[in-house]
């Protein structure tokens, strides 16, 4: 009996997957077999196989087959292992060990030993473990890492900083993404308030023959290019009813339909002075606009207050978000625009700080790929930050990443710092790595001119010489 072990392929279009397929995709890790994935996803074997076949025909997954597991573990042991295994990728060290953030060394150790005792393969030495053995070893490696990091004060502080930064960066990114949403919300609120206020203060109008659909105040329609939601529509109809009295047939036409011809004047409220239709409409519009302005001012105040409070808390991202909303409302307001510029600067600084620390941590942990990403994000925020560009290029080289990109970044750093030997060294290293000897030599020549005594420059030079002389051989060709 063989088992299917699916893995993801980069080919195929993964955007068209449905919810079940997406869930299944999230469980595919290249080691679990179809049965295990099915168990996790709550699908029968036949169902999971069907899903996998669908995904395979679309080129999204492929699979290898492996001999069916023979596992001598009981169900609870299996599920302990599977549950831990499923979390190995995402869970933080704290989550994995099941200890609180403030757990002391002793608690960390205790938790580590307890979990280790449950999943260490030696505990099941005589049992057949099949694919579970590898899983246990993977879990155990992660547990050990968690323990080692959390019981070393320095590494733990760095890790805390790192997860703090990661969370913060994510929060900021989300917040920025949400600004648009907040803006839309604020507008909706303004509109709602204006409508409600206008309706409340409106005297019962004389029977009007106006085409009500034409009377909607400009700001709302202008600002609501999207389809009107059911709620909005209902509210508007109710408003119109109140504005126009319960005149039969006085309903709003769906957009695009011509209005019926004005009917004969209907009964009216005799004790009030009668308004003509035009007068009523004008009044209505005026009132509405007044209210709208009022509500907008209220919102503006609210956003500015939010911004003030946020600034007091040094929460520059929140301040930035609030000011962006305010600025959208009153683009002509210089004062708000200026504050927004400052907030943007500060938020960027804060985010930059986060990216910088993250990049440095990742570099120390030799996660060069990650580090390169963080430096690049920093450079995106601060296009003139030569250090970010230079570090990003360096990290890419170390991560053995895309050398074209590295060269691009290093060149930008050189443009910004034409008198700094370090940026030449990095660019030179990129060239060297890419095998462009002449380029490397020319660039290092520049570095030498700037820093004639630097040992780094000297040693790079000698690397260039060496490469000229000898054929690269390792890893040697087999």
């Amino acid at each position, binding site marked *: 009996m063989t088992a299917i072990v699916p893995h993801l392929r980069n080919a195929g279009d993964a955007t068209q997957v449905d919810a079940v397929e997406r869930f299944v995709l999230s469980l595919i890790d290249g080691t679990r077999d179809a049965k295990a994935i099915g168990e996790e996803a709550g699908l029968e074997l036949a169902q999971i196989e069907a899903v996998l076949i669908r995904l395979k025909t679309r080129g999204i997954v492929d699979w290898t087959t492996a001999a069916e597991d023979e596992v001598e573990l009981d169900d609870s042991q299996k599920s302990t292992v599977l549950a831990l295994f499923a979390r190995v990728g995402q869970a933080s060290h704290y989550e994995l060990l099941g200890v609180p953030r403030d757990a002391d060394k002793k608690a960390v150790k205790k938790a580590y030993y*307890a979990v280790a005792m449950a999943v260490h393969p030696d505990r099941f030495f005589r049992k057949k473990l099949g694919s579970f053995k590898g899983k246990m070893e*993977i879990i155990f490696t992660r547990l050990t890492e968690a323990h080692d990091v959390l019981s070393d004060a320095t590494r733990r502080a760095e890790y805390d900083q790192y997860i703090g930064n990661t969370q913060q960066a994510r929060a900021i990114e989300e917040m920025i993404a949400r600004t648009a949403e907040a803006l839309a919300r604020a507008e909706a609120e303004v509109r709602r308030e204006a409508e409600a206020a206008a309706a409340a203060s409106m005297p019962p109008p004389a029977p009007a023959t106006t085409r009500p659909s034409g009377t909607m105040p400009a700001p709302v329609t202008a600002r609501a290019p999207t389809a009107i939601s059911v709620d909005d529509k209902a509210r508007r109809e109710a408003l119109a009813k109140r504005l126009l009295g319960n005149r039969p047939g006085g309903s709003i036409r769906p957009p695009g339909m011509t209005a019926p011809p004005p009917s004969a004047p209907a009964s009216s409220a005799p004790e009030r002075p009668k308004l003509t239709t035009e007068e009523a409409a004008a009044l209505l519009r005026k009132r509405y606009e007044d209210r709208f302005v009022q509500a907008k001012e209220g919102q503006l105040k609210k956003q500015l207050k939010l911004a003030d409070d946020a600034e007091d808390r040094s929460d520059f991202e929140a301040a930035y978000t609030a000011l962006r909303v305010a600025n959208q409302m009153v683009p002509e307001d210089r004062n708000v625009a200026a504050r927004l510029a400052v907030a943007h600067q500060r938020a960027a600084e804060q985010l930059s700080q986060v990216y910088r620390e993250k990049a440095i941590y990742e570099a120390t942990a030799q996660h060069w790929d990650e580090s390169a990403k963080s430096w690049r994000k920093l450079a995106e925020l601060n296009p003139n930050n030569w250090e970010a560009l230079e570090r990003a290029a360096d990290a890419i080289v170390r991560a053995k990443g895309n050398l074209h990109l590295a060269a691009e970044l290093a060149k930008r750093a050189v443009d910004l710092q034409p008198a700094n030997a370090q940026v030449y060294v990095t660019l030179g290293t990129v060239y060297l790595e890419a095998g462009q000897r002449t380029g490397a030599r020319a660039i290092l020549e520049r570095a030498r001119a700037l820093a004639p005594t630097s040992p780094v420059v000297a040693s790079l030079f000698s690397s260039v010489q060496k490469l000229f002389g000898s054929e*690269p051989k390792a890893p040697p060709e087999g």
Partner: protein
Amino acid sequence: MGEKVIGIDLGTTNSCVAIMGEKGPEVIENKGGYKTTPSMVAITETNRRIVGHIAKNQAVTNAENTVYAAKRLIGRKWNSPQVKNAVATSSYKIVEGPHRDVRIVLRDKDYSVPEISAMILQEMKVIAEDLLGEPVKKAVITVPAYFNDNQRQGTKDAGEIAGLEVIRIINEPTAAALSYGYGRNVDKTVAVYDLGGGTFDISILEIAENGVFRVIATAGDTFLGGEDFDARIIDWLVQGFKQEHGLDLRQDRMALQRLKIAAEKAKCELSGVKETEVNLPFIISRGPNEPLHLQRTLTRQTIEELASDLVERTVEICRQTLEDAKLEKTEVDDVILVGGMTRMPKVQAAVAEFFGREPSRGVHPDEAVALGAAIQGSALVDDGKEMILLDVTPHALGIMTFGNVFEELIPANTTVPTHRTKIFTTSRDNQTAVKILVMQGDSENDDHKELLGEFILTGLRRAPKGQIEIEVTFEINADGIVSVRAKDLETGLEQSIQVTATSGLTRDEINDMIANANDDLVDRRASEEFLAAKQDAEKLIAEIEKLFPQVEEIVKTSDFGRDAIDKARGIIDKAKAAIERRDVPAIKEQVDGLSRTHRMFKGVVQKT
């Protein structure tokens, strides 16, 4: 209770075997009643293999064919400095083997080092079987913590040749800690200082109440032990003799062997007394009739001076290990001394001074390691045992990359099982294959890396160098087996190997050696049986012969009597012939006849 697993401490000088009993782990005594057996093997003039005390006893007269300290050679390459040193100082002959490995020549036959070790392991197996009265198949064998993979593999091969399934190789200091912590329910950080005959190890462990033994850091020197102390004394004696008589004692193998024994004896005595006499009459002769004698007084102070750098070196390694463990001396709750050399007062004092505390007397320095191996054996096969051992890999593992740069994937002192991944790229344009060289670090010499294995990943797309990414994953599983995988990230093509470190022997050679060792075991068993039968027969023959005169006197008058006497003589002759032929079944048959005759003779004598 599951199947029996024995624990064997395969020492440089002494070996010890233990097993988990009803009341806990126990050391098994050999036939002579000793708890340890010398790790010595010899081939006698009659081409018999002898092991242990008997081998040790004949070492002087059969110096060239007696192997000691073979452990120092296991898993080593012929051209290593350690082997060179052994070639220069050993009284047996060491030659280069077919795979740049090491062979030992005994009576014109080459033996691999694992084969020699297997003889010792087989002896330990037999010691256990004699006690248990049943065959033993499984074993946990210990090695110095600082052994590399090739040395571990050599030890495993030796186990296999000896007919044992080695279910786990564990580290000696770790084993000692197991026996220290077993059944004690302590929560402590301990340092195990193990100075034996050939190797030095230091391990820092944490013992937790719930049965977890976790090694934090370990280090050592696989060529530093009692043998080196002996060598210092030998040098001193040889030097002095040369000054006095102008003769080099090293030229004479037998003299060297006597010096070696005397030096070790003096060293051990000086652990108890302040001064001792080395007295070797007729050690060598000048010309045909001028015998020379060696006689010198050695004081404790002299030996301490001679070996002070050796002791200092162990302390230095302790300091480094503590640093690697990120611990202060004060955080170590107990220091455990293991190994015969820790009986030397100077060693004890140095350890006490360094750690700032008196070492524990908690474990027996000669037995703790074997006991620990037995404990681990039973923990593995017995599901009820709530105990796990989290050990570390003593050496860094990595691959050799462009420009012969060692790229580390798994650092030393990483808890196993473990796995690590790194991404590499091609180093040349249009490179279609990469060779992955799996290397192991060796902290005795930072620059030196041992090659553990190699494989080739082919089918790479032709591209400028640096563009093709190869993901390399190292994995050490719970059994300590290293596997390495390389994957072309573009195509997903994958190649992997299980790194079987080499002891220097091929699979075929090992199989041959297993067969030979089995033959030998049959031989040995048979010879024991032969000896027993022979003794029985000879005893009866002697008694019958004693009775002959009397019986002849009594029965000479009757025909019947004469018949009986002739028959008796016939049986005795047959028995003697059977003994001559070493024909065990025939001897046994004659023994029956002999005892009948004996009973009959005695009856005749008594009646009158």
